[in-house]
Structure formats: structure tokens, C-alpha cells
């Protein structure tokens, strides 16, 4: 497969998944009431955060990234879940941890 065909195939896979439930409005009450959809955003965001903080191959090691995560959680608690509070506290924790490690 040449590179252009590969890129187009990747685009087809990605766009198909993105379009899956977007082609028509969600009418079904059953789907609207689906608890899976209620909790999926939280699951996705937490997973993206944990995978980002976890160093490859040493998932349980205490590293500056993990400490940044702890700082971010403290930021969420201190600043009433403000995004800026999470990012700022996490970044400060990360920089301090980099000095320490």
C-alpha cells in the first residue's frame, strides 16, 4: 500500500468512528438515559491523564510526572476544580519535583 492510500485508509477509519453516532440526532430515550454515556467522559479524561503521567515501563514509579498529577489533584481541591488551578498546581509540583529528582 502506498503512503497516500495508507493516509486515506487511516482517515476513513478515524472519520467513520467519529461519525458513528453523529449522522443523526440521538432520538432514542434509551440511548439518552444510557449510564455508560454519562460516565464515559470522566473515564476518558482520567485515563488520558493517568496514561500521560505514567512513565512508559515504570507505571508505579514515583516520578516528577506522577507528582505533577498529585499537585493537579491538590489544585482541583484548593481551587474549586478550576482548570487553571489544576494546571498551575500541577506545573509547580512538576517543577519542584524536577529540582528534587
Amino acid at each position, binding site marked *: 500500500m502506498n503512503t497516500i492510500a495508507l493516509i486515506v485508509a487511516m*482517515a476513513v477509519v*478515524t472519520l467513520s468512528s467519529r461519525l458513528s453516532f453523529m449522522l443523526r440526532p440521538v432520538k432514542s430515550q434509551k440511548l439518552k438515559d444510557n449510564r455508560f*454515556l*454519562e460516565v464515559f467522559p470522566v473515564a*476518558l479524561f*482520567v485515563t488520558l491523564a*493517568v496514561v500521560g503521567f505514567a512513565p512508559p515501563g515504570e507505571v508505579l514509579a514515583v516520578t516528577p*510526572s506522577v507528582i505533577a498529577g498529585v499537585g*493537579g489533584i491538590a489544585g482541583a481541591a484548593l481551587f474549586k476544580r478550576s*482548570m487553571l488551578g489544576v494546571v498551575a498546581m500541577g506545573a509547580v509540583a512538576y517543577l519542584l519535583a524536577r529540582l528534587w529528582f
Partner: protein
Amino acid sequence: MTATNKSASFRRGLRDTLPLAPPIAVFGVVFGALAIQAGLTPWLAFLCSLLVVSGSAQMAMVGLIGSGAGPVLLATTGLALRHLPMSATLSEMIGDTPLLRRLQLSWVLVDESYGLTVNAATRGEPDLVAFKTASDLTLYSTWLLSTVAGALLGAQLDTVAVDLGIVFPLVFLGLAASVVRTRTQWITAGLSVVAAVVAVSVLPVAWQISGAAIAAAAVGSRFK
């Protein structure tokens, strides 16, 4: 929906997304440079960003292209699985939006704009379509321009020295903190930590996020 609401939501979409543009730009430059170093031309690197619009899938392509199309498409599928529930949630949030708008919103259904839109919905944003459109425009234009910059820098850029840092995980942590409300969501958040740690330990990189998020949501949604 009034024009005032639409315009205000559009502005808030820009305001909320602009802080993400610099890290996205760094990511795009790194992708562009890696694509050139992997043997793509600048035109193909740009085409990839234009059509695929998925940083993680594009990075996987650059890393796996030497192994052939099969592994690249398998990785793309693993990464794309999470779009299924993302599109269902978004479709439910935007209601009776016309088809063309739905197609436009699907084109840039990426983690960042999805996260910001869910967050905006939680705080009662009046026009989510305008909000996400602004977010998508910001992210997409940044992604395309930075890919071109990286592709033109190509082999001159030391991609190892560019530290993408911890901005993205912190942003997602912030998004999680802002949307978690119910007991079921808290339980799901805890399950997601466990699932992500397990996934990072046992799953191939391309399947970690989709696998962990879908598993945690499937189990978490059973709790009341």
C-alpha cells in the same frame, strides 16, 4: 438560538481553547519533523494532518510505517475506538443540529475539543455547536500550521530534546475534575485510574486509552 448566544459561545470557545494552542503547536511541529525523518514528504505530512486529524494516530503511523500498513491501521483502529462513545455523547448534547453541521463537528472530534465541549455543557453553555466550532477552528488551524513548520524544519529538529511535558495530562485531569459530579462518576474515575495503570502495563500503546476508558466506563456505569 439567538445570534448573541451564538457569538458569545463562539468567543468562549476561542477563549477556552487558545491556552491549548501552544502545546498543540509543539506536538504538531514534532509530528511534522518525525514524519520527514520517517521518509514522508512535507506534502504527505500535511495531507496526513489534514485528513486524519489525530495526533496519536499520526504519531503511531510515523513509528510503525516501517512495519507496513497492517500495524498502522490496527493502531489507528485501537485509538479510534474511543470516538464511538465520544460521538454518542456529543450527538446527544447537540440535539437536532443539521447534518452538515454534524459532519463539520465530527471532522475535528478530538480529545481536547471534546473535553472542552463536555465541560462547557456541564456549566450550561447556550450554544455548544458554536462553542465547539470555535474550539475546532483553533485546534485544527494550529495543528495544520505547526505540522507544516515541523515538516519544513524536518531533519534539523532534534525531536528528543522537545519536551511535550505534562500539559496535556494536567488539562485532562482538570477536565475530569470539572465534570465529575455524581457518585457513579466518582466510582468511574477511581476505576479509570486502576484500568489505566493496568492498560499501560499490559496493553500495546495504541489500545491503552480506548481499552481502559471503555472498560472503566462499562464497569462504572453499573454502580448507582
